[in-house]
């Protein structure tokens, strides 16, 4: 089975409002899949449903090929960072992580080793014996993220993992997640599309309680005829430059120009025609395709 997680037609209603309205998504094994959508789109409700916290009105969940979530079956194989959930204030970082490890079936030694590894990985060594109450918001977040990776689970779901982290710690977490790409299946929900773009191999656009589009990141960001050129100096007349390559429309952006063209033209052909004209303005970078944010805003949100 190539999917770590499959949900089909999940429906969850709160009164008349459908938080999930036929949410179907297959998460490929070993992928890092990003969920993108507006507030209230259903991302968190879907995660909570997969984790068994929310009972769906209808639909199917198949988690790691063993049916809907059941702690007796999935404990230790599946983990989650729930959004807006507080760790027990009185717990001390290391003992809490060891305790969670023991609860999911790790031996005392394995739980200690796993906890120590994660404490080091998340730069919490000097806080290992501090109580959760004494930690800053960002540190608590790191402990909460760390607990998801105890015992190396096969599937991890992270709801807004980077929010509240300082730039250094956010980068550390991104590196940690990237190092697991291919080994651990990870689902990330975030409003930070730059982060999703940096971390994910697959992206699902979610709206109104269902998945509107699910693609690989590459397919989402490079399927449009678009090249962004970052330039040191402002170019002169864009029409003169565009004349070098019929079928290309050039527009000026804050740090350069963007060329948009139909699928009949290749990236290579457009570059070959435009770059010689743009070199005199100091070409700093050439970015074919579009960013995830552009893809989301252009194709989906507007």
């Amino acid at each position, binding site marked *: 089975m190539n999917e770590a997680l499959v949900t089909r037609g999940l429906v969850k209603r709160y009164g008349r409002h459908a938080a999930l309205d036929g949410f179907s998504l297959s998460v490929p094994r070993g992928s890092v899949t990003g969920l993108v959508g507006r507030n209230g789109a259903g991302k968190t409700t879907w995660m909570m449903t997969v984790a068994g916290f929310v009972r769906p009105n209808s639909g199917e969940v198949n988690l790691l090929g063993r049916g809907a979530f059941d*702690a007796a079956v999935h404990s230790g194989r599946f983990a989650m960072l729930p959004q807006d959930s*507080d760790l027990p204030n009185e717990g001390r970082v290391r003992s809490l992580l060891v305790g969670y490890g023991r*609860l999911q079936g790790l031996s005392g030694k394995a739980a200690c080793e796993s906890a120590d590894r994660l404490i080091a990985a998340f730069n919490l060594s000097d806080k290992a014996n501090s109580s959760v109450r004494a930690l800053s918001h960002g540190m608590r977040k790191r402990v909460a993220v760390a607990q998801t990776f105890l015992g190396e689970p096969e599937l991890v779901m992270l709801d807004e993992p980077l929010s509240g982290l300082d730039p250094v710690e956010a980068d550390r977490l991104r590196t940690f997640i990237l190092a697991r790409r291919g080994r651990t299946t990870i689902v990330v929900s975030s409003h930070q599309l730059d982060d999703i773009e940096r971390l994910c191999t697959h992206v699902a656009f979610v709206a109104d309680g269902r998945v509107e589009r699910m693609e690989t990141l590459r397919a989402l960001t490079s399927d449009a005829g678009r090249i962004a050129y970052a330039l040191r100096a402002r170019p002169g007349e864009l029409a003169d430059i565009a004349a070098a390559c019929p079928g290309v429309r050039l527009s000026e952006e804050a740090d350069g120009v963007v060329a948009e063209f139909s699928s009949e033209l290749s990236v290579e052909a457009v570059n070959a025609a435009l770059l010689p004209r743009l070199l005199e303005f100091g070409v700093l970078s050439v970015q074919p395709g579009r960013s995830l944010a552009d893809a989301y805003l252009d194709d989906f949100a507007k």
Partner: protein
Amino acid sequence: MARFELAAALRTKRAIALVAIYLVVSLFGMNSTITVLGKMEDQLAGILHVETVEGKSGVVSAALWKSRPFQKIAHSVVGDSLVYDDIVGRHPAELIYAWMVFLCVPFLSILASCRRVADDVSSGAAKFVLLRVTRLQWTVGKFLGQSFLILSGLILGALGAWCVAAFRLSGADIPALLPAMILWSFKAWFLSLAWLGVALGISHLSTSGSKAQTLSLGLLVAFAIAPRVLKLYADTVVGAKLQVLKMLFPSVMEDALWRASPGPVAAGAVWLLAIGLMWLSFGHLIFTRRDVR
């Protein structure tokens, strides 16, 4: 899960504070009642022309049972002739401890446990655990963890009360008081299991700790009043039918724990456990059908 819960409960200042308050109450209660007992003894010693030891009580504790006022007090407190027959002749300090522990245990159990589930659910802390254990394991673990906590508190209370008794009382029977008090603590622990079940069952139903606490304390009051109300209307047709409801109230089974012979005590203990498990199961059943948001 029980060990995790016990460790978590011990880390919370609330549980420690409650056990500490219980300890203070048992020490203070034992000390105060020994003072009262001493005064009664002195009066009785005067009447019987028996000598008392300077500054200590307990020399005439056996003779105290011959005092009609003391017998009347004991009988009215016990309220049941079978129980009265079982406790006649026992050391008054032992009985005072037993009375005190039976009085405190419902409050101790309710206050220590009624927020344990609701608080974890409302803060979201429950989610970190429920990803690792089933809801049934969680419920049972909470019950076992809390019951060990209460038992530890009761044993500590017995030790503390015995120390006060040993310090304040004289007589050869003081060493024998310790196992007797510990036995009463164990009996009270069975009573606590019923109240724990009530408190944790209610806690499973609530979305906030404050609501769970209010509801649990409300039930504590209701359970204290209801058997008396049922007794009042026992002669009516409806009242007679409703008498069966008494079996759901932990306080009704308390008398069995006062008995000396193991049969009634075991029956009472089993019934109290059943009451606790019934309330716990009720809460758990609702909880399994509930979203944890």
